[in-house]
């Protein structure tokens, strides 16, 4: 991956797209091979990793010290990101009361705050409405312009027009990956 590059990872169910991303994030040890990452990683898992009884602001405050951010900066940056994703920022609801799309937006925002230079996004727009989906890809273009490298797992072939490269994984490992 180069700075400013966007790559889509596509493939059949069970082909290992999410596993590949988790290996790249350092959450799983690969059986073979090696991944070298010289970047701060922002990882957005497929299933929103949230604490049900906490609000969006409380999630941002919890992540702040880990990212080396002050609480104020994390809240400022996080609320700005959430507002751009059309998240109801003034809503003080606990995560369990948020809609599926709103939970996913919070999930994505938690991957974006801080100074990540490599974004690993596993189907990050599940549950988004059309406007938020379009806005997401506009943001990807913006992140590329800012020099971030972005990897996106997707099922939608239409998404591949927004990226620089497509990596297709097959369910049969012996067939290997196809890069186009």
């Amino acid at each position, binding site marked *: 991956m180069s700075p400013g590059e966007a790559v889509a990872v596509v493939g059949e169910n069970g082909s290992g797209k999410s596993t590949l991303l988790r*290996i*790249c*994030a*350092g*959450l*799983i*040890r*690969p059986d073979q*091979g*090696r*991944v*070298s*990452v*010289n*970047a701060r*990683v922002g*990882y957005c*898992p497929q*299933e*929103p*990793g*949230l*604490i*049900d*009884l*906490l609000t969006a602001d*409380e*999630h941002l*405050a*919890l*992540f*702040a*010290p*880990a*990212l*080396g951010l002050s*609480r104020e900066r994390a809240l400022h940056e996080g609320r700005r990101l959430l507002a751009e994703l059309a998240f109801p920022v003034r809503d003080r609801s*606990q995560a369990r009361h948020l809609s599926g799309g709103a939970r996913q937006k919070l999930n994505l925002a*938690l991957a974006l705050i*801080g100074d990540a230079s490599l974004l690993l996004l596993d189907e990050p727009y599940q549950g988004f409405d059309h406007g938020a989906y379009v806005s997401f890809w506009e943001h990807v273009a913006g992140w590329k312009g800012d020099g971030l490298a972005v990897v996106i797992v997707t099922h939608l072939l239409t998404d591949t027009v927004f990226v620089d490269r497509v990596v297709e994984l097959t369910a049969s490992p012996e067939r290997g990956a196809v890069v186009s």
Partner: protein
Amino acid sequence: MSPARVLAPAEMTARDLSRRRIALALLTALPLALYGAQAGHLRHAVVTGGVVMAFSVAGAAMFASFATRAVDQRLMLAGYRPYELLLGRLLLLEVLGVLVAALFSVVMVLGTGPSDTPALVGGVALVAFTSVPFGLALGALAPQELEGTLILIGVVGIQLTTESSQLVAKFLPFWGPQRLLTHSIDTTVAIGAAVPVDIAYALALLLVAVYAIGRRVPVISAPPVSR
């Protein structure tokens, strides 16, 4: 390790628990009810009330631990260390444990009139002290809340149904407090090494919890993934 890296997990654990008022009220009411039901049997009532208090504190610790499971891996990827997350939760839960222990101590001292009041208060305090790492270890090791709850019920139940002099009781986490509580009613029962054994047990449980959480949510920062 900056204070914020411990205090933020502690604060969010407090906020999470404060929104589980009914569950916490039930967890606290159960031991009080069991104590009240046995109020006519001095020795049994004190040991039952004290040891069953583990349900309240260990239950709160276990639920707090399960609540954050989905996010622990991301928190560690973002930069937290397992011990920072655990230390923050431990501190908050020990404060909660002190409050619960104070409530139980007042109720049982007034309700029972023990022969050795400091031993009763000490026994209750040790139950709270040990329950936190016990609950955190259960939260890190048990597959789901149901399994964790059943293990909690099982361990506390066995501790209650055995005398502190029995061999099996000495291998359970609340043997030290059980001994102190028994002594508070019957001073002929020696306290012996109850306190140091209990502290050692609590520290061992805490190490188990740190190991389990680190193993369950490994963030690889060394080769084969180099960063």
